[in-house]
């Protein structure tokens, strides 16, 4: 999907150009990992090994991968419940994520959080939040901590276009702009908040302008193109690191699967989905770019094999890892005071 032709309101902060070869290959590999991981998760869900809610990220991979490439170690990421891709992009282990999906002790939250609730302080991933829009205020809080400590870090708060109508999102825009917090707000506009299309939910026709009343620069970005995402993310990061305050990126993206596993997706046509997959798939575009760089089919096959092995290993681990012992019911409710 082409972005708004008039990409605008860009930060004046100077940025580096597009991805180098190494980054291009890494982007392809990371997107492939997310795609294969999510397919496997869908499969395990179908087999009854994953329960409850399970929101797959298939189709949107370019967004997290492109943004993560523009971040530095120590920067923080926070998102909603559609979070598997974000975790893998931050470098969290596929094993720990998949084992959390199956509710096992080997999962990132010892099986107590599930698909929507995982965290890794080490990788700067702050969840995994199930209340739509909550992560935006919390994300402003991560940026607040960076501002308070003056440590030069940047926080990225991802949310869907559905969440973008929540009151606390606008409260967070105001607070972040008022205090000049280093926060990148990323709207992952996949066109549908559950079954309600963005046109039926938002009077705003250009979500990238939603921060305009607070003077937050915004860009609409082709979220199906990892290069475009990366370039925009670089501008956003540079803006925040320069102490200029928050930045808003509206990623025009698309999820191929339903809202969650139990969504029959009757609110859109099969043709619409097929068209996106065939004409705008982020992986296909990235694959073409990697080939254009002179990589051979054999080299690509090696990446495929590596990714497949990781995903299969994660699925095996997620089934072999035991369920949490019953004693875990009563742990982690309160931190014991020292």
């Amino acid at each position, binding site marked *: 999907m082409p972005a708004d032709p008039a990409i605008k309101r860009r930060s004046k902060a100077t940025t580096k150009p597009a991805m180098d070869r190494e980054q291009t290959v890494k982007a392809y590999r990371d997107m492939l990992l997310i795609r294969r991981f999510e*397919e*496997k998760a*869908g*499969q395990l*869900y*179908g*087999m*009854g*090994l994953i329960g*409850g809610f399970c929101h797959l990220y298939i189709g949107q991979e370019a967004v997290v991968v492109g943004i993560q490439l523009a971040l530095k170690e120590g920067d923080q990421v*926070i998102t909603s419940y559609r979070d598997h891709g974000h975790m893998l992009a931050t470098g969290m282990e596929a094993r720990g994520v998949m084992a959390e999906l199956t509710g096992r002790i080997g*999962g*990132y*939250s010892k*099986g107590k*959080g599930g698909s929507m*609730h*995982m*965290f890794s*302080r080490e990788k700067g991933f*702050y*969840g*995994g*939040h*199930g*209340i739509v829009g*909550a992560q*935006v*205020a*919390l994300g*402003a*809080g*991560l940026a*607040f*901590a960076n501002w*308070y400590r003056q440590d030069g870090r940047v926080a990225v708060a991802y949310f869907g276009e559905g969440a973008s109508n929540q*009151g*606390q999102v606008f*409260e*967070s825009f*105001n*607070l972040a702009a008022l205090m000049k917090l280093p926060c990148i707000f990323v709207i992952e506009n996949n066109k549908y908040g559950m079954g309600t299309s963005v046109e039926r939910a938002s009077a705003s026709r250009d979500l990238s302008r939603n921060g305009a009343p607070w003077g937050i620069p915004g860009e609409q970005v082709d979220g199906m193109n990892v290069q475009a995402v990366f370039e925009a993310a670089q501008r956003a990061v540079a803006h925040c690191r320069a102490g200029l305050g928050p930045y808003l990126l509206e990623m025009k993206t698309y999820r*191929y699967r339903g809202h969650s*596993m*139990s969504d*029959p997706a009757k609110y859109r046509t099969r043709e619409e989905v097929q068209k996106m997959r065939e004409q705008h798939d982020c992986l296909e575009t990235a694959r073409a770019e990697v080939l254009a760089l002179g990589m051979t089919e054999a080299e690509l096959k090696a990446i495929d094999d590596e990714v497949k092995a990781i995903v299969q290993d994660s699925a095996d681990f997620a089934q*072999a890892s*035991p*369920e949490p*012992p*019953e*004693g875990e*019911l*009563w742990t*982690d*409710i*309160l*931190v014991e*005071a*020292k």
Partner: protein
Amino acid sequence: MGAAILMPALSPTMTEGKLARWLKKEGEAVKSGDVLAEIETDKATMEVEAVDEGTLTRILVPEGTEGVAVNSVIAELDGGEGGAAQAAPPGAHGEKAAPLPQAEAPATLTKQPSVAAQPIASAPEKDWGAVKPITVREALRDAMAAEMRRDADVFLIGEEVGQYQGAYKISQGLLDEFGPRRVLDMPITEHGFTGMATGAAFTGLKPIVEFMTFNFSMQAIDHIINSAAKTLYMSGGQLGCPITFRGPNGAASRVAAQHSQCYASWYAHCPGLKVIAPWNAADAKGLLRAAIRDPNPVIFLENEILYGQSFDCPTDEEFVLEIGKAKVEREGTDVTIVAFSIMVGMAMQAAEKLAEQGISAEVVNLRSIRPLDTETIVRSVKKTNRLVTLEEGWPFAGIGSEVAMQVMEHAFDHLDAPPVRVTGLDVPMPYAANLEKLALPRLDQVVEAARNVTYR
């Protein structure tokens, strides 16, 4: 090698479904994302997509078949490269997926560390030596200042806390001493700034969030409960939230229903939170310091009417109290009156009146609502054999209900009379002076309740 395609579960509750239609025929090539079949559940018709590439070699369940169990084999795919990643035969997965009860997993369910059974050491409170009278307002301010001097990660955030010096003048002087980075005036956006403070606490900072009154915490209650209180558990212990939410709670005077409500029961209901309700200046100072140091989210319920009242408070620079310990404010032998916050004062007055009538009342100041010091309450009731609870909040599922139930569970045989609750009336707070007075607990009611349970 052929791979089995299994009947998928398409919702958290699905156990079987109808295979309505095959969209691919035997011998047809499929690639990832292709729709293979349509399945009808009790809720909807769903499409089954191929996960990997290959050739559909065999269809085992013809279309139109009803009651196809989840995980039964419905077709086979001759996997090209993707075959191996396709669903494996159900046997293999079935075995792996079987629950794996661990030998070392102890069945600790019986040892429920409930609010009630929280083991609280019964060591006597330390003697902090010299005291001098200060107001509750000063005690709160001094507590925050002391902790902010002690720890650079502590900051105060809220409406009017800085330049205005606090809507109730609790933060007087703090902006001057600590500057605008640590004493932060917020716009009127409780939801937003509470979420922001909670996010900051996830990184290890220790915010003190001042609500102008706890009534406004309702705007932010999602972050207090869903974000601050539950994340430690949901993260398997990785992400704590060392944050203090404080401000005046309960009825002030003539401010009507939306500004006169006790939140003790609301917050005390939730695991993952601690809830404190100080009465006097020593409670306020010692417990607020403890709350700020506590690595957990703490709700600190103050009372506007108490702000200006003076009480003796230890002068020791290190003075701090332990959370979770009630205090016997007055010893007695005939009846136990359990109260918290401003109602402790009324309980003390009632005890005075009862003494004149020859009834010896023991007054327990809860100080901490969660964890609740059941041990101190039970010890007292075992001595007096009678219980009156006193609170400003509503009766239904109130703190008095919980205290009475704890006594039932732990000292039933020691009771010589059914416990009695004295509470605010079960109505929104009226504005009219006469009605407001009627809606709140009154001294004569407490005296009467004590007389009733002692059958005098």
